[in-house]
C-alpha cells in the first residue's frame, strides 16, 4: 500500500507557518471565496425569497379571470381538491379600491377577499398574522422587547389571532359576529418597526375637529374601524356606482414583501362579494334584452317580432376573480403542476358554458406572474457570479506567481531533497500539498468570513447606514443616506442572510481547486529541475 512520505507534510507545515508571501495568497483566496459566496448567498437568497414569498401569498398556482371573475368556483375547487396532486384550493377576489385612514386620509389599495379557512390551507396565512400571543421572543429580539410577549395580553392576542383567521369580529355593541379587515402591517403607518424586525403600535395625538387633541393608541385590532371603497362591475365589465363599507380591523399581517404589506388589505370573501355584486343572488330579467348579447342595446330589433314575454327570475351564482391552488408535494415540479391545473380547469370549463374558456383563462405560477422581476434577478445573479469567478482567477494567478517565485527561492532545497533520494513526483507533491494547504486555509477562512458577513448582513447594513448618517451630520450638517438595501426598492425588508451548505461546499471546493491549479505549473517546474543544477543554483 502506498503511503505518502512524511517529509511532504512536514515541509508543507513548516512552509505554511514560516512564509509570509503564501499567506498573502491565502488571503486572496479568503477574499475571493468570501466575495463569491456572499454574492451568491445574498442574491440567491433574494431569488429564493421571491419565489417563496409567492408561495406564501398565492400558493403554487393561480387560476385567474380578473375584475369580472367567474362563477361555479365551488365546483372548480371541488374538482381540484379531488385530485391527489392538489393539497388545497381557495377562492379569492382581487380588486383595487380605496381605504380611508385616520383623519380622512384616503389611499388606493389592493383588496383581497379571502376565505380565511381555505386560504390558510393554501398559503401560510396563519404565519403571516402578526398579532398573536408569543411564548418566546423572535430570534433577533434579544432583549425580549416584543409587545406580544406580555403575559397580560395573552387572551386579547389569542382572540385577535382567531379573529384574523376568520376575518370576523364581534361587534361590542350588538354582540354579533361581523366581517372584518386584516391590514398589511405597513398600511397606514400605525405600527413602528423595530430594529430587530418587529412592530409595536404607534401612540399618536389626534387633533379633533373642535381643535382639541387626544392621545390615541393605534392598535388597530382593538376597536379600529376603516372605510373601504370599491367599484363593482356588471357582468360585462362596466363600472357601476362605488360602494363603501365601514369595517372593523381584526388583525394585521406581515408577508415580508414590503409592497404587499404596504398596499394590501384582506377582507372576508363574502363581504367583498356583496360589495362587488359578485355574491349569489336572484335577479329578475326582462327577456327583451338578450343578456348574452353585449351589442343588444345598439341594434334595436323590430319590437313587433316578439311579444313581451313573462319576466323571468334568474339565479346568479357567486363569482370570484381567482382560485389559488397548492401542490401536495412541496418540492414537486411547479410547471408540471400548472399544466395539471390547466387540464382540470379545461374539464371544468367544458361542463360550464358560462365560464371563460380554458384557452383564455390565466393559469400562472408566481414565477409566471412575476417573470420580469424574477428573470431579471436570475440573470443578474448569474452575471455577477460569472464576473466574480473571473475576478477569482486573480487568486489562481497570485498562487501561481508566489509559488513560482518560491520555487526559485527554494531551488537548493529541491536539489537537496533529490540528493537525499526524493523522487520527482515526491518533490512535486510537496508543492501541490502546499497549494492545497493554502487552499484549505484560504477557503475555510473565506467561508467563515462569508458566513460572518452574511448572517450579520442586516446589522452591518444598519451600521453602515448609521455611520453615514453620523458622518454626514458632523461633516456637512445634513445626514447622508447610506441605505443600500432600501425596502422600497428591494421588495423585502431584510437582506437575505443565510448560506446554503451546498453553495458553501461548491465555493470552498472551487477555492481549493483554484489553489491547486495555481500550484500545478510551479510544482511541475520543481519536478523537472535537474538535481545537480538545483544544487549548483546561486
Amino acid at each position: 500500500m502506498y503511503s505518502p512520505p512524511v517529509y511532504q507534510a512536514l515541509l508543507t507545515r513548516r512552509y505554511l507557518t514560516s512564509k509570509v508571501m503564501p499567506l498573502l495568497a491565502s488571503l486572496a483566496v479568503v477574499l475571493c471565496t468570501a466575495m463569491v459566496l456572499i454574492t451568491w448567498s445574498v442574491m440567491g437568497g433574494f431569488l429564493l425569497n421571491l419565489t417563496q414569498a409567492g408561495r406564501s401569498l398565492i400558493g403554487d398556482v393561480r387560476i385567474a379571470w380578473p375584475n369580472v371573475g367567474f362563477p361555479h368556483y365551488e365546483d372548480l375547487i371541488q374538482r381540484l381538491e379531488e385530485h391527489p396532486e392538489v393539497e388545497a384550493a381557495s377562492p379569492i377576489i382581487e380588486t383595487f379600491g380605496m381605504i380611508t385612514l385616520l383623519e380622512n386620509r384616503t389611499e388606493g389599495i389592493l383588496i383581497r377577499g379571502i376565505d380565511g379557512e381555505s386560504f390558510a390551507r393554501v398559503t401560510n396565512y396563519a404565519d403571516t398574522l402578526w398579532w398573536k400571543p408569543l411564548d418566546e421572543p423572535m430570534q433577533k429580539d434579544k432583549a425580549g422587547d416584543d409587545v406580544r410577549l406580555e403575559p397580560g395580553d395573552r387572551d386579547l392576542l389569542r382572540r385577535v389571532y382567531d379573529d384574523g383567521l376568520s376575518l370576523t369580529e364581534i361587534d361590542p355593541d350588538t354582540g354579533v359576529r361581523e366581517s372584518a379587515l386584516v391590514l398589511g402591517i405597513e398600511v397606514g403607518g400605525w405600527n413602528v418597526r423595530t430594529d430587530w424586525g418587529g412592530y409595536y403600535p404607534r401612540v399618536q395625538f389626534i387633533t379633533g375637529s373642535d381643535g382639541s387633541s387626544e392621545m390615541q393608541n393605534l392598535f388597530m385590532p382593538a376597536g379600529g374601524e376603516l372605510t373601504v371603497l370599491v367599484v363593482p362591475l356588471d357582468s360585462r365589465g362596466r363600472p357601476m356606482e362605488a360602494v363603501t363599507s365601514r369595517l372593523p380591523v381584526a388583525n394585521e399581517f406581515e408577508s415580508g414583501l414590503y409592497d404587499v404589506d404596504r398596499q394590501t388589505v384582506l377582507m372576508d370573501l363574502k363581504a367583498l362579494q356583496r360589495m362587488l355584486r359578485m355574491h349569489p343572488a336572484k335577479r329578475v330579467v326582462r327577456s327583451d334584452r338578450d343578456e348574452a348579447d353585449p351589442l343588444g342595446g345598439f341594434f334595436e330589433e323590430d319590437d313587433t317580432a316578439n311579444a313581451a314575454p313573462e319576466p323571468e327570475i334568474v339565479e346568479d351564482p357567486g363569482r370570484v376573480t381567482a382560485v389559488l391552488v397548492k401542490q401536495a408535494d412541496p418540492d414537486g415540479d411547479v410547471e408540471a403542476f400548472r399544466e395539471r391545473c390547466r387540464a382540470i380547469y379545461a374539464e371544468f370549463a367544458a361542463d360550464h358554458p358560462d365560464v371563460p374558456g380554458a384557452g383564455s383563462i390565466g393559469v400562472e405560477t408566481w414565477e409566471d406572474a412575476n417573470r420580469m422581476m424574477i428573470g431579471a434577478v436570475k440573470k443578474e445573479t448569474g452575471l455577477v457570479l460569472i464576473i466574480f469567478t473571473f475576478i477569482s482567477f486573480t487568486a489562481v494567478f497570485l498562487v501561481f506567481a508566489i509559488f513560482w517565485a518560491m520555487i526559485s527561492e527554494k531551488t537548493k532545497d529541491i536539489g537537496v531533497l533529490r540528493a537525499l533520494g526524493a523522487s520527482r513526483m515526491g518533490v512535486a507533491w510537496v508543492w501541490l500539498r502546499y497549494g492545497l494547504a493554502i487552499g484549505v486555509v484560504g477557503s475555510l477562512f473565506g467561508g467563515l468570513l462569508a458566513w460572518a458577513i452574511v448572517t450579520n448582513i442586516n446589522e452591518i447594513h444598519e451600521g453602515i447606514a448609521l455611520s453615514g448618517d453620523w458622518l454626514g451630520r458632523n461633516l456637512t450638517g445634513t445626514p447622508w443616506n447610506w441605505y443600500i438595501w432600501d425596502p422600497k426598492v428591494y421588495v423585502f425588508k431584510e437582506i437575505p442572510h443565510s448560506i446554503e451548505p451546498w453553495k458553501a461546499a461548491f465555493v470552498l471546493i472551487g477555492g481549493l481547486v483554484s489553489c491547486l491549479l495555481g500550484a500545478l505549473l510551479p510544482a511541475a517546474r520543481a519536478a523537472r529541475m535537474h538535481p545537480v543544477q538545483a544544487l549548483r543554483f546561486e
Partner: protein
Amino acid sequence: MSTVTAQTPVPTEPASSGPLLRVAGLHKTYRLGRVDVPVLHGVDIELGRGEWVAILGASGSGKSTLLHLIGGLDRPDKPSGGRPGATIRFESQDVVAFSHAELNRYRCRDVGFVFQFYHLLPELTVTDNVLLGAMIRLGRFGYMSERAALHETAARLLDAFGLKNRLRHKPAQLSGGERQRVAIARALINDPSLLLADEPTGNLDRKTGAAILDVLAEIRRERGQTMLMVTHDPEIAARADRIVELVDGRVAAQKD
C-alpha cells in the same frame, strides 16, 4: 585508457569481496549552447570498503562533477564514436543502467552527501533535517512505526557530534561548523555504504575545518565508513588514506 594501479589495502579495512565502488572510463561533457565542454575524460577510480579517499584537484577540474556522477545525481556521457560507455559499479550493481526509481533508491539508501555549503533546509529543526533522509526512505506508516527509534538514532548522532543541546534549533541559529556536523549526521541517518563529501571544509576556517575532519576520521574509525572526499587543499587531502589527483578531467596520480 588510464590504468588503475593496484590498491594497497588499508589496515582497518574489513575483510570483503572486491571493492565497494569501481569507476572506469567515466566521461562527462556539458553542452553550453553549441559548444561541448568536456569536463571529465576517462576517469578510473576504485574504492575499497572502509577506505577514505580524497580527490584532490584545482577549482574547475571536475571534482564536483565526478562526485555527482558517482552519487547518481547526474548521468555520464553515453557511449559515442566507438568509445565505450562509462562503468560505475557499486557493489554488484550497475549504477549507469539504473532507472529513475532505482537512482532515487540508490541516493537514498546507498550514498550519503555532504556539501560545501551544508544545504540544510532552513525551515526545519536540526533533528528534522537529520531525519529527512529517513522520511524520504520510509512511507508514512513505516516512518511512524520507526519514529521513536529514528529519533533516538538522530539524537545519538548529533550527541556524538557535540550538538546535544541543539536538537530543536533552526540552522540559522548554528555556526558554520555546527551546520556541517548536522549535514554529516543527515548523510548518515540511512546508514549508507558510501559517504560523499564535496569540500566539506571549504566554507570553514582552518580550525573549524580541522574539527570537521576530526569528525570524519572518527566516523571512519567507529563505523568503518567508506568515504570519498573532494578538496582542492593538499593539506586536507592528506588526512585521507589515499589521494587521487584530478588534473584536466583525468586521474593524474595516486599516492597513499
